[in-house]
């Protein structure tokens, strides 16, 4: 077990290191250094100032020195300086990360609950049309664009009916509506995978045995199907963190919320490369961290993962 954990942790660290290296190389591959790019957006910049700022932020150092000094900085929690505000990247992120965490974690919990409700109703319902409706809900939900749903809800609720603010004002609706918009998009793949996996498990002989023993559909569903289908849903939930982040960018823009999404958007717009770099590394860490967590929970759900000497333990679970 401890070997499994050590392996997974080492893998996660390697992934983050590779992500950092990829981002670093991508920045080096840009036709110019970050200071020049930032200062030349829309106006001509003074070459002396550019040179001065380059040396201040260390962009005039040899590549290897930059690589290791930036890496050392990250290990110490220092992500460099945002060119657009002059403030450290870390403090710029710290200012708004709380807002995104609130939105994203609430949306995630709501999305999981929503997926469970859809799958449960869709599986247990006796009425064919209800079953059909719920089975078709996830594909519908995933095809509704996040920004469109957000725009429509705001247009109706904030502009037409005037029951909520166009801006985050701390009221229940101003948080609940963005959470709902994001969760709808997020819960679709979770529900979809859960549906498929329950349908597959339903075909297995042990379910027939349970039925023959007189177990009710609900009992089989909650005690066996759901438990067996959980690992695959967990995997997809881990992967949705990407969707969550992309969804947050749009949700935060539509709902005028501060957050990482808005920060990314603005950093890209004004070409604040150190800030973009910091955000990408943070995203890589978050993504790897969540997937590490999923990997560590998996053995609890399916002990075979530890015994199976396979590189694709997760494939076995799915």
């Amino acid at each position: 077990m401890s070997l499994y954990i050590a392996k997974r942790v080492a893998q996660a660290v390697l992934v983050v290191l590779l992500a950092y290296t990829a981002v670093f190389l991508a920045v080096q591959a840009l036709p110019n250094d970050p200071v020049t790019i930032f200062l030349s957006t829309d106006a001509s910049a003074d070459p002396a100032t550019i040179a001065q700022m380059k040396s201040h932020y260390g962009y005039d150092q040899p590549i290897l020195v930059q690589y290791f000094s930036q890496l050392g900085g990250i290990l110490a929690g220092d992500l460099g300086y945002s060119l657009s505000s002059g403030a450290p990247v870390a403090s710029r992120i710290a200012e708004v990360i709380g807002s995104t965490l609130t939105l994203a974690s609430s949306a995630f919990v709501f999305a999981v609950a929503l997926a469970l409700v859809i799958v449960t109703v869709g599986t247990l319902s006796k009425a064919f049309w209800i079953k059909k409706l719920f089975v078709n809900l996830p594909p519908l939900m995933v095809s509704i664009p996040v920004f469109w749903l957000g725009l429509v809800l705001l247009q109706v609720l904030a502009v037409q009916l005037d029951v909520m603010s166009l801006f985050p004002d701390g009221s229940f609706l101003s948080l609940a509506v963005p959470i709902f918009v994001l969760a709808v998009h997020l819960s679709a793949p979770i529900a979809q995978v859960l549906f498929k996996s329950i349908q597959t498990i339903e075909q297995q002989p042990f379910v027939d045995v349970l039925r023959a023993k007189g177990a009710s559909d609900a009992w089989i569903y909650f005690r066996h199907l759901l438990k067996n289908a959980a690992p695959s849903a967990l995997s997809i939930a881990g992967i949705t963190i990407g969707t969550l982040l992309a969804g947050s960018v749009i949700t935060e823009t539509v709902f005028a919320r501060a957050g990482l999404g808005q920060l990314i958007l603005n950093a890209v717009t004004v070409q604040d490369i150190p800030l973009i770099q910091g955000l990408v590394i943070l995203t890589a860490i978050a993504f790897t961290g969540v997937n590490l967590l999923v990997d560590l929970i998996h053995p609890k759900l399916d002990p075979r993962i530890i015994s199976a000497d396979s590189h694709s333990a997760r494939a076995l679970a799915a």
Partner: protein
Amino acid sequence: MRLKTFAFKTSAALAVLGLSLTACSSNSSATKAVGGTSDSSTPVSGGTFTYAEVTPIKNWQTQAARFYEKANVLNSVLDRLTYYDTEKGEIVGWIASKFESNDAKTEYTFTIRDGVTFSNGTPLDAAAVKANLDALGLGIESAQIQPNVDFSAYKSSEVVGKNQVRVTLKRSDANFLRATTSVAAGLVSPETLKLDNAGQSAISKIVGSGPFVFKSEKADEEVVFAKRADYKWAPATAKNQGAAYIDELVIKYLPEVAHRAGAAQSGQVDLVRGLQPIDEQTLKAGGGTVYAASGVDLTANMAAARIGSGKLADEKVRHALQSGIDRQAIKDTVLSDSYEIAGSIVNHKAEGYVDLSADLAYDPEKSKKLLDEAGWKVGADGIREKDGEKLEVTVSSSNNSVVIKPAFELIEQQWRAIGVKLVNRAGDNTFLTNALVDSKIEFFGTRQFAYGGLGPVFGPANNTQTLNADEELNSLFVKEQAATTEEEHLKLVGDEQRALVSEKALTLPLWDEVQVYGANEKAHVEFTSGTAPIFQSAWKSKD
């Protein structure tokens, strides 16, 4: 960009839906051209005024206020030495009660008004002005702060007498006084100047002498300002010489364009910038007001031409493209009545404007003839060729203007009719980053603050409009800056416009810069010549 287009269409559909739902539209609707007295009613005191900007800003350092998002807010926090009064068309006193220059325009003397204080209580005296001018003219190296580009002639300044500051320039500069009217030349307290870059960029630490004072901030969501009750040093010609009418000013951010009209109409904000042409009618129909703030301090929107790829090196080709643009069609198709077709490279209301509209007339036949003469023959696909090369040109622009991309889409069609292919990369900021300094990218779609005249915009070799230091033009700019009489100066400003637009066609002017604001029916507001809202004189009617 696809997403944007879709969002745009959706918002249009929603706007129509909104119209049909609120079928109670009032018809008291008018676009207010700004600059004149737009309201005869008496201002009401009190209340909170909410203004929605386009994107959040985290850098409030003075010299960096060359973007609307910053300047529009700092305008209420920082006073300047002088003020440009659009109605009178002249520079009037503000913190400097008097200003004069020597005949050679190499020395300017400002007399500082008595009794002005920063919001922290320290006096805005001659010493504080000198500290500010040094920071603007020379930058602050230790804090990584660049000099103000309009102060490129600045050499030094000294305090003379009790309350005067004398500025010495490296060379003559007839535009220096105008540069002191810009928000980017706003005055901050000497304590603020001592901070590092991050400190000077934080709105909470910017101490000015303006009518509003920082109160609180929620990062990337809002900034709140309170009025300064003891404010009594507005620009000489301002109608309100005292404290602001409103008690509190709230700046919020509304990045989503689709909500801007609705935000103003529903009263959730009193004023919003960046209204799309398509939303103007919706807002008016709902009782709101559309304010078109004229950008007198800026150049017209243009396609500045670069000759690096060789395709535009022949003047005839540039002239052909100039007359190949149907500007009226652009206005009718993608703009609105709030926009005025450019008659020169500067705004109609700018000092020294000359009407060159005859040279900007749409004449595709003339274009074809010129291109033929230049040796570009129509190929099999309708696109002209010469020496095996297609007449294909590229335009780049930032996404700051809401109308620039659709405008170039139309120009693309118009130029195709004369056999020229336009590759439209307008609104693509990533592409712009490289294109800005690549002379092979033939066109740069833009408009620029021109406080220092046209010289700093088109002059130096590293200017990003043409990436070309045209010797004739440059000597003209030098002569213009060195002009010693008003008469001579205006004549040379006219010559510059004729050279740039009519003779060399180095820039294709499109429409006068204007910022379109949407206001709730209760909001009353005026704007500076730099299109910034003047919150010191803004007020809200009671219910």
